[in-house]
């Protein structure tokens, strides 16, 4: 459904997206996971024709983003990171305008508006001005708008950034439902590991504009080579002490914390402790996507992901 061919975007010296090769299948939910500034939004902007690629190209619904921009746009729905819905207008009016922009006739619009509002659970608030909506409702209204013209592909750029955890879970279930029930291909970007893990059929981890890992959440975690992680407090040289233990797959140190990747902790923990001696505040857990991220990039995704850019923060008070 979406294919990119060495897709590249440079802003002056900075390469925001670096020769990205990606293939997203019809009907799947694909997450681009990476810290802010990794090139996720730039990728989406190129795929929907808002930015011209510096090099390479991409196809969406078999249309070339460079040569068939209008056809591409007709095939996609998009929900932007920051609000783009008119809050002086009602949800119905916003949808009506969207339908007109996408060339839908009156009969189709009238039929489609309640359908999409139903999908996102806003039918009873259809005639309320968007400014009376909560953050989560706004996002749902934007999702409804993205679906209005029956796109084949839905782009969601950081769909739950800035929303509270409860609302986030809500939005997730809407996205999941609509993808499965309406067979829409979804490409979402996020810097929340839980989000990618919960929603995505496949995940592409992106950093500095490059795709560094790709696979199902399960595959990605498998690629660590260990199925359990032991975290403990210790200043001992664990690497030296555990030398020769085959089930130890890797050791990372973060200050006084040590992270030991092991196979089958339930079976091997005893043997490990025999070698290392006493460890403080020991915790055994399953690998997360964050472990995967650290594994591939050598850094924690959260270090780079302070909420929102400088611009976003200074602009939020200026909604029209």
């Amino acid at each position, binding site marked *: 459904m979406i294919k990119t061919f060495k897709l590249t975007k440079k802003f002056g010296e900075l390469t925001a997206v670096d020769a990205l090769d990606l293939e997203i299948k019809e009907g799947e939910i694909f997450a681009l996971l990476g810290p802010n500034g990794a090139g996720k939004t730039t990728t989406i*902007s190129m795929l*929907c*024709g*808002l*930015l*011209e690629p510096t090099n390479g190209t991409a196809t969406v619904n078999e249309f070339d983003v460079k040569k068939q921009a*209008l*056809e591409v*746009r*007709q095939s*996609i729905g*998009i929900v*932007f*990171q*920051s*609000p*783009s*819905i*008119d809050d*002086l*207008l009602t949800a119905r*009016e916003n949808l009506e*305008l*969207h339908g*007109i*922009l*996408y*060339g839908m006739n009156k009969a189709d619009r009238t039929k489609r508006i309640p359908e999409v509002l139903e999908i996102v659970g806003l039918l009873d608030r259809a005639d309320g*001005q968007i400014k009376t909506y909560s953050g989560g409702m706004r996002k749902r209204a934007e999702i409804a*708008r993205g679906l209005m013209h029956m796109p084949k592909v839905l782009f969601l750029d950081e769909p739950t950034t800035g929303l509270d955890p409860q609302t986030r879970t809500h939005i997730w279930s809407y996205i999941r439902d609509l993808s499965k029930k309406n067979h829409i291909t979804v490409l979402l970007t996020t810097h929340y590991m839980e989000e990618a893990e919960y929603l995505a059929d496949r995940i592409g981890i992106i950093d500095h504009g490059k795709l560094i890992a790709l696979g199902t959440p399960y595959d990605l975690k498998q690629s660590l080579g260990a199925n359990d992680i032991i975290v403990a407090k210790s200043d001992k040289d664990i690497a030296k002490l555990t030398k020769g233990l085959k089930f130890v797959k890797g050791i990372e140190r973060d200050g006084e914390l040590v992270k030991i990747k092991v196979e089958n902790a339930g079976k091997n923990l005893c043997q490990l402790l025999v070698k290392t001696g006493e460890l403080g505040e020991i915790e055994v857990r399953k690998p997360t996507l964050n472990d995967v991220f650290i594994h591939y990039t050598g850094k924690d995704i959260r270090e780079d992901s302070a909420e929102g850019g400088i*611009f976003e923060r200074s*602009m939020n008070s*200026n*909604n*029209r």
Partner: protein
Amino acid sequence: MSELMGIYGVWLREVKVFFREKERVISSLITPLLWLAALGTGLGASVDLQGINYKDFVFPGIISMNVLFVSLFFGVYIVWDRKLDFLKEVLVAPVSRTSVFLGKMLGGVTDGAIQTGLLLVVATTLFGFNISPLSALFAFLIAVYLGACLVSIGLIIGANLSSPEGFNLVMTFVMWPMFLFSGSLFPTSNLPGWLDIVVKLNPLFYGVDALREVMVGQGQYPVAVDLLVIGVTTLAAIVIGAWSFKRMQV
């Protein structure tokens, strides 16, 4: 067909939003009324120009000022829309950038037309101007025509500004000079050479001149000449504007 619908969609959005922003309509009506009170009634109490009272002389100028402020503001405002993603919704629609530009432009012209109509009615009533309904109608039509030119210029500036901080610069270096050197406030027939050139290069001058001709019979050029200059400027602005929209990145 779908392009026409795109233009209609963009236009309809502007008009709908406009009608929801009553504060904006009212506040933009207050400014010209204050100018009329201070310059028209205040200065007019002791000044006559070219055989007519200054109040009657300045009224066409204040109408032009209002068209200028409303139109440029509307156009340049897209620099905010761009930063806040509002414009993206329109830019990702399967509609050409030329149509987006035209829809926006017509939206701005409609907003301006409503405000000019209101101003004509309110000011005439409040300040007791003596204008025939026919010249009021002509004045209205000229103001709308002038609006198309000024909104287009505003949109060009807005599309080329890279940050909203530039917005204030535009107000300082474009809007105020255009207003002050348009002949809105003074007669243009005896200006010193340099000022005469500045004024004649200003598209707003031709709007003021045409309005002054139909409202008080004091234009420097025939209305047809004024309208021709404005029309040519508008066409050029539409071409440049559509091109600016095409290369605008968000």
